[in-house]
């Protein structure tokens, strides 16, 4: 009989258990190490920009914070609008596939939505600028003419449609497949007993979903949304190709003077950057890191991550 501390019986640790649990801890630590390395790399490369003398920074910015301010605004603004579109639609599509669609074609429908994830971001950028923007421009003109009292739609409409709103819609489309796939898997695993109990008590389909599926899936939906948000914040190529950027902080979403995102700005300026310019781009990448940090912290605090609600318990 093996005893550990007084009164507590610990299980015998077999070799397989030890190896396995150590390897999982090692894997987790690798992630920590990689992130730390990325952070150190970013900080080291950013120092020349943060300590730069006025006149050496791009965009004639007097100091680094003036340079990066509009970029931070643009990043958060575009991602926020994209998530406002993407989250309800992806939950809706996932519900449709898991609970509303006929059983036989549900798998096919899931595959069809996953096709959206197959499209590379360059193609999204080209599609956005060649097809979507021209298609949306008449709508922007209509908004600008008729709903101008909402400050979002004021200003002079961009004739090409290359605005923050177009970019947000494309970002939402890019983010949709990831969120839908995860939500769909989770909704499919909702406890059948609860669902059938709700239906047996006379609940309508929506009430059943509200009572049995959504509470079960809430942490998973939050995870999916975090993944989607990360993608929306860090998307480079599509933003670079579609957006018509300017150095401005503006809430108007249909004009040609749009705040650029950090990732899009890096893509646009990286090719010709050297010296302090290059450092300021890397430094803005570091700021994006920090933004993701902060946004995730706020989201987790607001939603409140609960411990594993697993299976039928």
């Amino acid at each position, binding site marked *: 009989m093996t005893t550990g501390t007084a009164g507590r019986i610990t299980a015998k640790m077999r070799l397989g258990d030890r190896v396995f649990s150590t390897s999982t801890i090692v894997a987790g630590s690798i992630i920590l190490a990689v992130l730390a390395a990325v952070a150190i790399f970013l900080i080291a490369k950013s120092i020349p920009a943060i300590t730069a003398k006025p006149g050496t920074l791009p965009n004639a910015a007097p100091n680094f914070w003036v340079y990066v301010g509009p970029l931070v605004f643009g990043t958060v603004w575009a991602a926020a609008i994209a998530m406002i579109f993407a989250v309800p639609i992806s939950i809706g599509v996932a519900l449709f596939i898991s609970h509303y669609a006929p059983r036989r074609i549900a798998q096919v429908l899931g595959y069809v939505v996953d096709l959206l994830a197959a499209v590379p971001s360059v193609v999204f950028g080209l599609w956005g600028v060649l097809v979507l923007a021209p298609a949306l421009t008449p709508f922007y003109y209509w908004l600008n003419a008729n709903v101008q009292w909402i400050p979002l739609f004021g200003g002079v409409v961009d004739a090409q449609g290359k605005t923050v709103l177009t970019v947000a819609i494309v970002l939402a489309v890019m983010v949709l497949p990831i969120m839908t796939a995860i939500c769909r898997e989770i909704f499919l695993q909702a406890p059948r007993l609860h669902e059938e109990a709700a239906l047996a008590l006379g609940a309508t389909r929506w009430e059943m979903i509200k009572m049995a599926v959504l509470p079960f899936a809430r942490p998973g939906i939050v995870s999916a949304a975090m993944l989607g948000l990360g993608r929306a914040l860090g998307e480079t190529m599509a933003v670079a190709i579609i957006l018509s950027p300017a150095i401005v902080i503006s809430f108007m979403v249909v004009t040609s003077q749009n705040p650029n995102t950090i*990732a899009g700005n890096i893509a646009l300026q990286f090719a010709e950057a050297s010296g302090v310019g290059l450092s300021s781009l890397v430094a803005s990448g570091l700021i994006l890191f920090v933004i993701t940090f902060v946004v995730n912290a706020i989201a987790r605090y607001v939603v409140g991550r609960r411990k594993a609600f697993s299976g039928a318990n």
Partner: protein
Amino acid sequence: MTAISAGPIVNSLTTGKLPKGSVWLILVASWVLMGLVFVFVQLAGGTKTFNIVGAIFLGTILFDILIWVLSRLVEGARKAKDRLITSLISTAFVVTLLPLVSLLYTVVSKGFVRMIEPSFFSESMRNILGSDGGIVHAIIGTLEITLSATIISVPIGLLTAVYLVEYGRGPLARTITFLVDVMTGIPSIVAGLFAFALFVLITGNPGYRTGFSGSVALAVLMIPIVVRSSEEMLKLVPNELREASFALGVPKWLTVLKVVFPTSIAGIVTGITLAIARVIGETAPLLVAAGFTASVNYDPFNHPMMTMPVFAYTQYMQQGAIQSDYVNRAWATALTLILIVMVLNIVARLVARIFAPKLGRR
């Protein structure tokens, strides 16, 4: 004796319900009604062309209002809300299909003709001027780099997810969860710069641009997706299964490998496929870390490697004098990439279906 005037026999199964098929009727009627409204507007000179998109969109809104009102009158508030939500959810699905159809149509119409030319899959771009040339070098590069990135990131990602779900209880687990979220926000070009700088540091060769460096950059982007989705799937496995396994004396590591993994394999494979689909189309990090070449290169540890998204992007952005040559190659490459990912998706789903336990819903 008073004659009891009996009313018509009421079918109690269908009282308080909208007649069968009425929903579809109301939908079509709303569209037709809105279409007529728009025709009148066009005839009165308000718009130049018949705005079919506006007609269908406003018709759907009209349908939502009508069905909610009618259902509320006939069936009651709860059922009305249910019908409204059903309509909204179906609309969400259709709305999602629109960009997909448009995207696929754009890529296929612009890229199909060039893609089926025989030179496209049998030649590289070495010494090619003009309209020939193919993407053999790019396909090989994409397959090798993405495969290596998957080999790096899937074990790390899966084991971390296992740690977070099965073992982790304390501050380390919370930190890792939080930092994985932060990792999802790394812009792809920063991942490329990081991988490039890392390998320059390790190898001491300031010009180290190779396929392997590109794989590491992609792995940095893939790991958070693998971790996050696998974690969610592992958490969905019912605790009873684990406890039953422990009760039978199976050690924890065997439980995870033989009980938890197979139960969640469908979801895990979905997550891995998502991660691969995400990185296979990345341009910016590979341009920095893997470089650019027009020739075939099988060696991931020496010399730059070309990948398909980088090829498509550079062909489109740096066109020569005869623009159509370049543009056609770019779109054909994009189409090939989408087809490869579609095939990958099918393979993944087949794998999942073969190995997954047959649960009630599937």
